[in-house]
């Protein structure tokens, strides 16, 4: 029987270019930097974060200082570059200082929901069977409500206030993140490398730690990033309804609410907080899209 030739070592057969291989994250970062849209979005997000951190020092005027004489001035007024609100407070300063609170209540619930939702979803996805059914059907109960309605209902039950609105938004996002986590984990669990790990005798905890987490956290993280925009809008909505931030704190959603009465008097000024929410949410969305394609290493 000499139907097959003598063994040849694979390395002599197909020499690959021999640079030291880049790690997964390094090459993902490289792909990300080559995506102009994602880089632009990342720049805007960094600017917004800078505003949130340094806002009080950047603001030209006191955002709480009201003046009956300067009410509802248009954009470009002397000393009021972006006009003034219904109490004569400097819009520019309020928008800058408002970045901190607006981003805080937009991002915090997503971070909390990411941790809890990923844990629940990975547990359900890896356990499978009856555990999966029990967890996911419970999650579905929450999922059945439109998120705005659920956030309002929870905030109403918990009472108004920043902390309570953060809690209610966290509860709104947990089911959504858990669902994504569950479906990604279910997919990964069926891969041959997880089977091979089971075949080597590893326990479930070790398999999840070594083989599952690294492969599911990326997609869950990308999905969570896209929720930041939703969270900002919902948080603004809660403030708008008087369930979140209380006046006179500068927060974009609340500002939008209080200025809505002035929409016919100073439409451009009244629209400014909305523009900020829009820019923030679209930047986070584009950022998460960029992350998604950068982390896809099928190339």
């Amino acid at each position, binding site marked *: 029987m000499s139907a097959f030739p003598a063994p040849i070592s694979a*390395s002599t057969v197909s020499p*690959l270019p021999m640079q030291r291989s880049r790690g997964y994250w390094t090459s993902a970062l490289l792909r990300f930097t080559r995506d102009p849209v994602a880089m632009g979005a990342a720049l805007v997000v960094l600017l917004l974060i800078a505003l949130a951190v340094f806002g009080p020092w950047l603001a030209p005027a006191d955002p709480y200082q009201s003046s009956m004489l300067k009410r509802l001035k248009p954009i470009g007024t002397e000393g009021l570059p972006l006009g003034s609100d219904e109490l004569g407070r400097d819009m520019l300063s309020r928008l800058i200082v408002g970045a901190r609170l607006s981003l805080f209540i937009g991002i915090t619930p997503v971070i909390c929901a990411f941790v809890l939702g990923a844990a629940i979803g990975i547990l359900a996805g890896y356990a499978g069977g009856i555990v999966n059914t029990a967890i996911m059907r419970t999650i579905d109960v929450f999922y059945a409500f439109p998120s705005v309605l659920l956030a309002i209902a929870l905030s109403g039950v918990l009472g108004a206030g920043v902390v309570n609105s953060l809690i209610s938004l966290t509860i709104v996002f947990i089911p959504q993140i858990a669902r994504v986590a569950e479906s990604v984990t279910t997919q990964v669990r069926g*891969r*041959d490398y997880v089977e091979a790990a089971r075949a080597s005798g590893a326990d479930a905890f070790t398999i999840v730690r070594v083989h599952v987490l*690294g492969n599911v956290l990326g997609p869950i993280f990308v999905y969570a990033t896209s929720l930041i925009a939703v969270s900002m809008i919902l948080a603004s909505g809660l403030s708008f309804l008087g369930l979140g931030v209380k006046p006179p704190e500068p927060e974009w959603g609340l500002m939008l609410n209080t200025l809505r009465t002035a929409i016919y008097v100073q439409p451009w000024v009244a629209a400014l907080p909305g523009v900020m929410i829009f820019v923030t949410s679209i930047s986070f969305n584009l950022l998460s899209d960029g992350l998604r394609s950068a982390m896809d290493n099928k190339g």
Partner: protein
Amino acid sequence: MNAMEAVSDIGSPAQPLLTIRGLQKHFPLKKDPLGRGGGVVRAVDGVDFEVLKGETLGVVGESGCGKSTTARLLMQLIAPTAGEVIFDGRAVGSRDLPLKAFRRQVQMVFQDSYASLNPRLTIEDSIAFGPQVHGVARNEAVHRARDLLARVGLEPQRFAERYPHELSGGQRQRVNIARALALQPRMVILDEAVSALDKSVEAQVINLLLDLKAEFGLTYVFISHDLNVVRYMSDRVMVMYLGQVAEIGPSHPLYKAPAHPYTRALLSSMPSMDPDHRTEEAALAGDPPNPIDPPSGCRFHPRCALAAPVCSQRVPARVIADSRQAVSCLIHEPGSGHPMAQALAQAA
């Protein structure tokens, strides 16, 4: 100290390394909301065989005949509906042979070389994972992984820190073989392990497998749909059809004189390199029947060229584990009522 010593034989060399008795796996089907449907897929339906120490048992059959399900049952990756798996005289999962101890001794190489490696781990980490699970220190495990890489023909300095997507299919399959060997197993199940490779690469990997078998004294279960490769690799061959064993026996006699009409049809579908040896036998027509609702009697009768009326009524005797050579067909059962069986019985 090395926390992981190779396990030596328990029973005598004559004791089969693996004995399978009455193995069944039925996958339940989902019922529709009205409660209809809900049958079972009889993926593996009563399989008995033995794997002897140091041999290669080839397993052949069409897609969907239960080859891969059998492999996964052997590996205890899925729980059988019925039947036992006995490894070197001890029932798997019993107190004598806990699952974790069994898994050290039996490893598997999968068909899809890419899907069977974690894309986020370097290949040396993938290979070193198993030994670490069994208590080998990380440094020691990585050291061993590099030795194994060298042994399967991949230079450790060049490949150890690469990621799976940076390797070719053949190189990845070498990594998978190294990973399986990292636990110093006694038996390796090769589930279509070379089927996805180019012919030239396939030949290299097959020769590597044969070398490793001799070097480490391994026992192989070699699952494939490629009859030529199975013939080259195997000491004995088991032919499966629709979740059951049609025929089993030493590979030379079986390829030369197949007894089961299915084996004959299968072998005649294999193109011969020798024009004088063209078979006149009709090739197998049609698809295998649905394992949800297998045909009555002999499962092969709707496609069998030699089927008689009795074949749809009487179930042929199952191939039993301890026979060296056996066939599950009414033609070979004297007095079964098949016209050709009668003739055989009189001749005997």
